[in-house]
Each structure stands twice: as structure tokens, then as C-alpha cells.
């Protein structure tokens, strides 16, 4: 849980975290937006499905992998917010099987 300090950095950029609008300061990363939104998780791990939130915020740990504007596996801490950005939780491992193959 994080809170902005509007006196230092007004929250001026509106983004969508799991579909919910949240205003964050310019210069914040997509990962920061998820923390400010109070989300329970930014991803669920590929191995056990455990919830994770960002850990390092500097591009090292890859625990902030999320879907940003439809692209999966984005290091959310490395992407500055822009107005209208859509950040979504990444759930587990991607299904490698082709649906049209019927299996």
C-alpha cells in the first residue's frame, strides 16, 4: 500500500489498473501505478500461481511482469505511465497450446 504526496507530486496522469481508473504522478512507472492502486497482485507466478507485487522497482527482479497495453511479460517498473495506459495482472504461464488445434 502506497500513498501519493500531492504537495510534492500531484497525481495528473490517469491510467487503468485491471480496468479501474487511477491517477498517478507523471514520471511514475506502470509498476508504481499498480502499487498506488492498492492491487493485491501484479502477476501470478508461472510455477505455482502465487501472487506477487513489484519487489525491486529497478529492473532486476522481474516480479513486476504484467500486461501493459495488451503486451504480456512487460517489466512494469521500466515503463513510465502515459495517459490511458492499461495495466493488467498477468496470470500464471501462458497456454502454449493452440486453441484451434483442439487440445
Amino acid at each position, binding site marked *: 500500500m502506497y500513498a501519493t*504526496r500531492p504537495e510534492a507530486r500531484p497525481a495528473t496522469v490517469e491510467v487503468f489498473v485491471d480496468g479501474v481508473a487511477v491517477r498517478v*504522478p507523471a514520471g511514475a512507472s506502470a509498476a508504481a501505478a499498480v502499487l498506488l492502486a492498492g492491487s493485491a497482485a501484479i502477476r501470478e507466478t508461472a510455477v505455482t500461481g502465487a501472487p506477487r507485487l513489484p519487489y525491486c522497482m529497478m529492473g532486476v527482479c522481474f516480479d513486476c511482469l504484467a500486461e501493459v497495453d495488451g503486451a504480456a511479460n512487460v*517489466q512494469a517498473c521500466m515503463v513510465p505511465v502515459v495517459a490511458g495506459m492499461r495495466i493488467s495482472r498477468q496470470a500464471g504461464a501462458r497456454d502454449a497450446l493452440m486453441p484451434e488445434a483442439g487440445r
Partner: protein
Amino acid sequence: MSFDLAVIGAGPAGMAAAVEARALGLAVLVVDEQPAPGGQVFRSVEAAHGDAVLGAEYSAGLGLVESFRRSGATYRPGTTLWHLDPDSGEMSLTPGGPAVARRVLLATGAQERPVPILGWTLPGVMGMGAAQIMLKTAGAVPSGQVVLAGQGPLLWLLAAQLKRAGAAPALILETTPKGRLAAAFRAGGWFSGRGLLLKGLGLLRETRGLPVVRAVTGLRAEGEGRVQRVVWDGGSADCDTLLLHEGVVPATHIPLALGLEHAWDVRQQCWRPVVDVHGASSHDRVAVAGDGAGIGGWQAAVASGQLAALDAAHRLGRLTAEGLAQRAAPVRRMQAEALALRPFLDALYAPSAAVLAPPDDQVLVCRCEEVTAGQVRAAARLGAQGPNQAKTFLRSGMGACQGRMCGATVARIIAESRGVTPETVAPLRPRAPYKPLTVAQLAGL
């Protein structure tokens, strides 16, 4: 695009190198993953220098950023180096096209030393550096019951910054064992480094009154779906955000991938690339400057960046040997002064054996592939000689972070299991791409 010098990283070392190299007439490229210059220490300083909470030393970074902006270096922010061929100087960069340089300076800085404890993967557990980045980039502070656990200068700096912001931590759990202060004074450096020492004492004074438990051992995080409690030997406390810190270590990912010669740093308990006084590595095109060559802090990083730039100019025929010696002398004095307190700090805040190799078999050491300390010990018993072999047994180091978070811990656990010293176990050898790429990025080549 062809350059005399390519600098990877726009922190204090990279910026100082670019400014110095431009002043000597070199064509300089600076590549940095962040959207703005400053590195982690001066992260977002152009936007946040007016925030008094961060302190005067942070705001002082603005001057360096401004000289870098004026230097005339070609600056590619938001750009990742994912491959470097040291023999040809060709660099693969994304986004955007490749570049080539006659000399390459790696100024990729440090990362927080991983603190593998039970529950450290729970949402709400983060590095103290991460909380500071929230403060610098978004002006944001953790809310609710905030607990700081670990040790090092950053702990007291962050505690002071949070207190100034009206978000003082509810509790500080310091892991420095009893008797360390005496050891630190014996290690020396405190007198010549007294300027920095006084700064540290100022932070201690400013944070006086905050509840502190000292000599904490057995730290773990507990909770359902997120951290709710922090527990240690002899105590526990409710907790919404747990911030961990056990110092920083060089970011050796690219130097190790390049196969540069590395040495085990006994004082800082980590690998670092072997460099000469000017930062030149074992490869004749590549230099390493700043914390990436050994932790020394931002002022030492500035000096080492300048030295590497002077050396580049000399190697490229733009500066005579006499010119190099003359210009390097005052910079080396500045560097020595900036490094004076290191022996004291390294002795005071040496990480415990439990941080380097968690004794509890249940602790996750590889956060990506969710591999436990117990599994690594079992692999060692089956004959894994080091992290490179453990990777094929367990996938530790094969996940998205490419071993940045687990490599050192896996190596340490195996060293303990084999009964050998840490430097006898070869570090994890990263491979290009230095960061994961999408097929689209590769196809765009």
C-alpha cells in the same frame, strides 16, 4: 551509428564519463534503460529535486545531470543493451538500431543484495531501494504499518526520508550483530572518511525516537496472500509493508556474460570485475566504472567514470600519456577520499551467513522458478558443482530475471554444502540477450 566511446548506464559514473569524454572531443553514445538520467541514486532528480524530503545530497545530483544534458553526447534513454560483441564493438540495442563503438564503458551500477528469508515473495515485501524509487519517481510513501528490516546506510537514509514525509516507519529491525562497531573501528577509514561518517551520524540523530530492535536474527515474513506479520527470534509485529535491505552489490550481469575476468571481493562478499586504476577490464575494448566495478558510492563513481573517460581518450590517441597522468592525478585523489570510509562501512554492515545462504530449507531462493534452498542443497549432494550446474538440475537462474536474484545465493549454498570457500564456486554465467526479448524485437533486426 559509430562512436569513439559507448557508455552503458546514465548514473553518476556514466554521466561523469560522458561529460569528460565530450570535453576531450570524443564522439560519445550513452545508452540507459531509464527514461531520464541520474541512475538509481539520482533517479528522477530533474523532476523531484524540489522535494525537500529527499534531502540536499539528492538535489545536488541535478548539477551532474545538467552538465550531462549539455555535454553533446548522443543520449538514448529508455534503451536496453541486449548484446555486445566486445571484439567488434557492435551493440544490439532495443528499441532502435544497433551501434558500434571503439571503446565501451559499462556503468551499470549496483543492485540491492537479495535478502532471501521465509515469505520474501509475499506481496508487500520489497527492497528499501524500491521504496526509495517510489519516493523519487512518484513522491509516494508506503502507508499503514511499515517495517524496515536489515542494515546499511540506506536504512537510515530511508527512515529519515519517510519521517520527513510524515510516514515514519512503525518499527526498525536492525540485523547488525552486537560488537560490529568495534570491528568497524578496527577496520579503519573512519578518520579519513569522517565527512561521510558525520553525515551518517546526522541521519541517526534525525531518526532518534523511532522504535528500533537491534541485533535481529531469524527474520521472516508471514501472511495470507500478502505480508501481515514480521517475525524474528524473540518477537513479532503486525506489518503491511516490509522493506528489506542488506546493502548493494555490483550488477555483474553484463560483465559476467562478456566473460570478463572477475575477482571475489572478501570485504563486500560478492564478485566484481577485475579492473585497473582507470577501470580497464580484462578485455582491451571494455572498461567498467562506478558501483558495477565494486561498491563505492556515487562520489567514487563520478571519479571512476572520469578516469575511464581519460583512459579512453588516451587509448584513442586524443590524450598523451603525460596528459592522462596529469589529469588523472586529482581525480584519483578525489576517488581515494570518497572511498575512505568503505573499510569501516563494509566491516560494520557485513551481511550475516544467514543472508548469504539461508539455513532454512523452505526459503525460496529463486523467485522466478520458485526453487528452495533445500532443493539447491539436494542438487549439491547429487553433484552440482555450482549455480551453472544447479540451473540444469532445478531451473534456478533460468527464469525471467536470468539469475540476477538467485545466482549469488545458489552459489553460496553450494559452496557451504561442498565445504569450499565462496570464491572456488564459479558464478552463474549469464548469456545474451542480457534481458528477455520478444520475437517481434528480434524480428525487427
